[in-house]
């Protein structure tokens, strides 16, 4: 499209809030009881963050990568693309993030303990896995529109940011989840969804915690030879 600068965000939003949520509803219906498996996988990832070893970290990255690959395919490409012409590009981004996470799993090395990062990261990841589905209970449609980690993008991105913070991952791996949080918050804001601020807030919290704690733990990082 030429003259992009003449377009506002609202001009590009091509679907209603109703269509957006009915998409989640249909996905939840079609994948049930896959949500139970997804939340269980999320809890295992949280458990991995509590264990210091390389195998636990590898497992977390592997499972996160699988979640991104699945959401990219099942949500963006198979569903969201029906109502959003940008969704195939989102699917590409999610596939790339999956590859990056799997690459991280392959090259995971011992990590010097970073307790503050771990605590905030764990809290953020916990919010993505355990709190996000509960948001649906505030609406009229209950669990049918629950946003579940590994099923829809937002809790997947928020959980990932928590994990990346806890594991002090390379900033490059943060880019796509951060970008998605910005896109999603903007979309939800245009759709006038009450918790539109949540993905952006999670991104800001993760960035702020990452910067502050990295500075504070710089001597530790230097001693650690290289970041994972």
């Amino acid at each position, binding site marked *: 499209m*030429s003259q992009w600068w003449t377009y506002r965000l609202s001009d590009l939003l*091509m679907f209603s809030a109703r269509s957006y949520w009915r998409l989640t509803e249909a996905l939840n219906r079609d994948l049930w009881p896959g949500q139970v498996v997804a939340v269980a996988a999320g809890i295992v990832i949280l458990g991995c963050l509590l264990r210091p070893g390389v195998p636990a970290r590898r497992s977390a990255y592997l499972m996160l990568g699988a979640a991104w690959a699945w959401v990219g395919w099942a949500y963006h490409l198979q569903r969201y693309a029906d*109502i959003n012409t940008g969704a195939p590009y989102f699917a590409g981004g999610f596939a790339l993030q999956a590859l990056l996470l799997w690459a991280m799993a392959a090259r995971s090395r011992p990590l010097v303990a970073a307790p503050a990062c771990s605590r905030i990261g764990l809290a953020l990841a916990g919010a993505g896995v355990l709190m996000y589905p509960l948001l649906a209970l505030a609406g009229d449609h209950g669990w049918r529109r629950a946003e579940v980690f590994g099923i829809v993008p937002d809790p997947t991105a928020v959980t990932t940011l928590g994990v990346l913070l806890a594991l002090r991952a390379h900033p490059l791996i943060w880019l796509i989840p951060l970008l998605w949080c910005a896109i999603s918050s903007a979309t939800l804001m245009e759709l006038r969804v009450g918790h539109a601020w949540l993905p952006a807030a999670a991104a800001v919290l993760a960035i702020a915690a990452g910067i502050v704690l990295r500075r504070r733990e710089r001597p530790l990082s230097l001693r650690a030879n290289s970041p994972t």
Partner: protein
Amino acid sequence: MAPESSTRRRLLASLLGVSGSVLLPSLHAAPAPLITRPIPSSGEAIPVIGLGSWITFNVGRDREARAECAAVMRGFFAGGGRMIDSSPMYGSAQDVIGEALQAIKPARLFSADKVWIGGGARGPGQIETSRRLWQVPRFDLLQVHNLLSWEEHLPQLLAMKKEGRLRYVGITTSEGRRHSEIEKIMASQPIDFVQVSYNALDREVEARILPLARERRIGVIVNRPFRQGDLTAALAGKPLPGWGAEIGCTSWAQALLKFIVSHPAVTCAIPATSNVAHVRENLLAGSGRLPDEALRKRIALDAGRLA
């Protein structure tokens, strides 16, 4: 799709004493016939209320929502509506329209779509894809969407019209974008329609585009008549002033539409909705008395004051 004649309807219309300029909407009786306006370049009469599909018809594969869209279209045609407008930019809307058209098989459809792709070479392919999605033999009107690559698309559309593969050619914009370019094209190109945003609060087009349309005998299609629902939402719960009864309006939505279609340069407005009750209400605005210039000013003033 060319309008088909209906001898029965015409006979019934003449028996009922309905003038040739109004369309008898349905044998099963809508309350009043829809007002029509002649398309300036041809004289063909078209109802002043059409149906847009931006956002409302982009429902993907959702069967329930598709059925609701089909019900809206059924109500639209039953009430005498004819013009449906869409675009390749509207996601699944064209497919939803095509499926509903197959089920309804309306006697009279005025199919208005758009070409929206960078570069003229890809235009014909996109138009053919759109036509297949609509499942129509040809479009009545094709418009260059938001002036994207208009220098390349417009000659192609005009050639299609010359070859009889298209009946009308137009250009579109929305939300007040690129009006000076729109004016230049209107002044220099043999287009049949221009599509712009216009409502009781966004009246920029009144200054130059609408007068130019009259001067150049270009039909005007009005999009975003309710500011994508924001205007009717802002006026919800605000009682319609006394003038509403003078023009047979019972709601702000009707008054806002009557404000638009009463402008002498406007051919039709294309409100979009996914609600059958709303489509019926919109069609009501296309019948009965229209406001005169003095009342139009009051509508704009009151809408601005209360919204």
